[in-house]
């Protein structure tokens, strides 16, 4: 009990110190800038404010990225230079081919279903009175951590032989309807889809909320004008709604694509990549922490980064274009 109390107190103290500390830091830096000659101040002041953030970003993001790049050219224990060997392995080993194939599956299926379902739900709930309740329920999974969700879904997918009571929800339903239980996580015909379904369950709420906000921003007059002109709802959806929120759809989709590329927690918790469910990020974790092969883990990390960069770039460019239009 006293442990618990001291932890709570430590957390509170840390929050207070942190907030007061940041405030103090900025006030302190600001007054330091105030000591400079008047004409230099406007030029220095912005740097005083973004300086700490830049330093922290540099230390926690830029430096590790460069270091990872460097390590990817060294051997397992980062002792010898091995040239492109780690990349060669990454691109040729059968384990990685499985991972690449699965990540592609994740990108296509998770993005299609999360964004698609999110959009459909957003449009449908837009027309009902209990919209907030419906949206809250669908948004709920977003509040659950990936690891938590994976543990929950392990129970949903649990398998017991046909002759004993099922503890998994899905298999219980199948058996109740007279079917045979399915090994959701070990049957290679379904296990990848079972994992991606968890991802979709987690992401749909996020997509729905953003798309729903975009829907509300469509001017009423346009929709009314279309209705007056006799356009069917179907046609309004495809020719007005979708084009008008297309940039939001693109932003949401790229976010989900990035999440699919980074897919790790679900796979790690539910199968750890066995039975053909490996993904790139899980393989990276394995090479790094299970096999202690820093070179390969770094090479995989670099390749993952290279795969994500174009998506990020597209996202940023679209964002800038949008800003310019305003």
């Amino acid at each position, binding site marked *: 009990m006293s442990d618990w109390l001291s932890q709570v107190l430590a957390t509170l103290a840390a929050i207070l110190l942190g907030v007061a500390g940041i405030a*103090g830091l900025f006030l302190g830096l600001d007054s330091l800038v105030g000591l400079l000659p008047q004409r230099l101040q406007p030029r220095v002041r912005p740097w005083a404010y973004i300086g700490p953030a830049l330093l922290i970003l540099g230390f926690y993001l830029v430096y590790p990225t460069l270091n990872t790049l460097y390590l990817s050219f060294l051997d397992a224990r980062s002792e010898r230079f091995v040239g492109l060997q780690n990349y060669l392995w990454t691109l040729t080993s059968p384990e990685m081919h499985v991972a690449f194939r699965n990540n592609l599956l994740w990108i296509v299926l998770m993005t299609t279903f999360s964004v698609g379902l999110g959009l459909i739900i957003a449009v449908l709930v837009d027309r009902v009175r209990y919209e907030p309740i419906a949206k809250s329920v669908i948004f709920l999974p977003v509040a659950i951590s990936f690891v938590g969700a994976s543990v929950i879904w392990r129970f949903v997918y649990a398998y017991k032989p046909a002759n004993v009571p099922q503890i998994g929800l899905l298999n219980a339903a199948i058996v109740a309807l007279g079917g045979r*239980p399915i090994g959701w996580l070990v049957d290679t015909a379904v296990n990848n889809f079972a994992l991606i379904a968890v991802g979709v369950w987690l992401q749909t709420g996020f997509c729905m909320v953003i798309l729903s906000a975009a829907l509300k921003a469509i001017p009423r007059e346009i929709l009314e004008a279309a209705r007056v002109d006799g356009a069917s709802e179907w046609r309004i959806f495809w020719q007005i709604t979708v084009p008008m929120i297309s940039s939001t759809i693109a932003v949401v989709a790229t976010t989900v694509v990035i999440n699919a590329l980074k897919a790790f927690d679900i796979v790690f918790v539910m199968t750890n990549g066995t039975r053909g469910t490996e993904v790139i990020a899980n393989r990276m974790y394995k090479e790094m922490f299970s*096999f202690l092969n820093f070179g390969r883990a770094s090479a995989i990390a670099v390749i993952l980064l290279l795969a994500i960069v174009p998506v990020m770039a597209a996202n940023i460019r679209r964002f800038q274009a949008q800003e310019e239009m305003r």
Partner: protein
Amino acid sequence: MSRRIVGFSLTALTVIGLLLAGCAPQTVTVTVPVEKPVQVTVPVTVPVTVAAPKGAVTVLGVWGGSEFEAFAAAVEPFTKETGIGMAFETSREQATVLVTRVQAGNPPDIAILPQPGLLVDLAKMGALVPLENIVDMDQLKKDYAQAWIDLGSYDGHLYGIWFKGALKSLVWYNPRAFQEKGYPVPTTWDEMIALSDRIVADGGTPWCIGLESGAASGWPGTDWIEDIMLRTAGPEVYDQWVNHEIPWTDPAVKRAWELFGQIARNEKYVWGGTTGVLSTNFGDSPRPLFDTPPGCYMHRQASFITGFFPEGVKAGEDYDVFAFPSIDPKWGVPALGAGDVVVMLNDTPEARAFIQYLATPTPHEIWAARGGFLSPHRGVDLKAYPDDLTRKQAQILASAEVFRFDGSDLMPAAVGAGSFWTGVMDYVGGKDLDAVLQAIEKSAQDAYK
């Protein structure tokens, strides 16, 4: 006070505050992924503060729950005598945590590793303290069989003391069910297969096997294959296989897999069929032994599995054990085992005293009395074990003529904790054996370099 000084002192204060916030809470909390977070705050007697009377030893292990409680009890006399406390952290992802902390220059004083492979890795990194001058080597040689001392050494130095042993070559069965049906306890592989066929003919399922084990899924199958390999090819070929002096595609290795498959891939032999084998958690897998009528009749697993048996089942009445039988009479009944090795990462007087204490029989006997524990220490009084069944196993472990450590724990992790595990899953899942062995061989060629 001028503005300048105010500004400076505010900034300085902030920096100090941030530093304090960064290092203040020295709580011993480890979050374990997959299952619920495990928090182990463990003042054996002395809470973990820098100002403890005689300091505290920080220990990183994989034990939680009852295993941790037993270990804490085993350490209690040490704390009483020396005033040195123990702060025990537990993590299922021990290798990850340990390697990260070694690299960060913040290792625990002591680590208890479940595999000698990690000991070798850490020794190679230069993270371990040699123990020759810390423990009495002459006494140690009396207390431990050479096989155990070798397993704790690397490159001519002793780095680890074996604390907890496990005997793997065991088949658990339900003696009542055997008696009712008139089944004999098999003493050879052929008898065991004949018995399995008889059980199937009687409408039962002979075996319970569970390969699911979270991120380590597949390992129970590696134990099967190792046990079979020791019995079909002998200890020397076994060593060659573990050291990758023969390839995975060697006929001796293939034969061991085929014999494993004869049981594990036979839909009629295993509870729940192969999907059941792949999906059932290893800890849950022996439970059908105790159902009425029994869901299965035999379960091959190490000595620790009794800890997973349902509450209230009694040794000797509800369950009994026989040695995994001989296959080729030439190689008899060797013992396959495993254990936990204690290593030292910080050379402090407290850590030295702690290691010296763990090399004495006392802590071994305390845990032994609590059950679920076998000690490789020869000085441990057999009377300390709670029942005849455990005593029987302890005797086999401490005195086995041919003893081999779990091979997958000795192989490089990329094989022993990687392709071997996934290979077992794929093979039981129906993949062609040659393809499985070729895949493991490919990763082995690369990992043993």
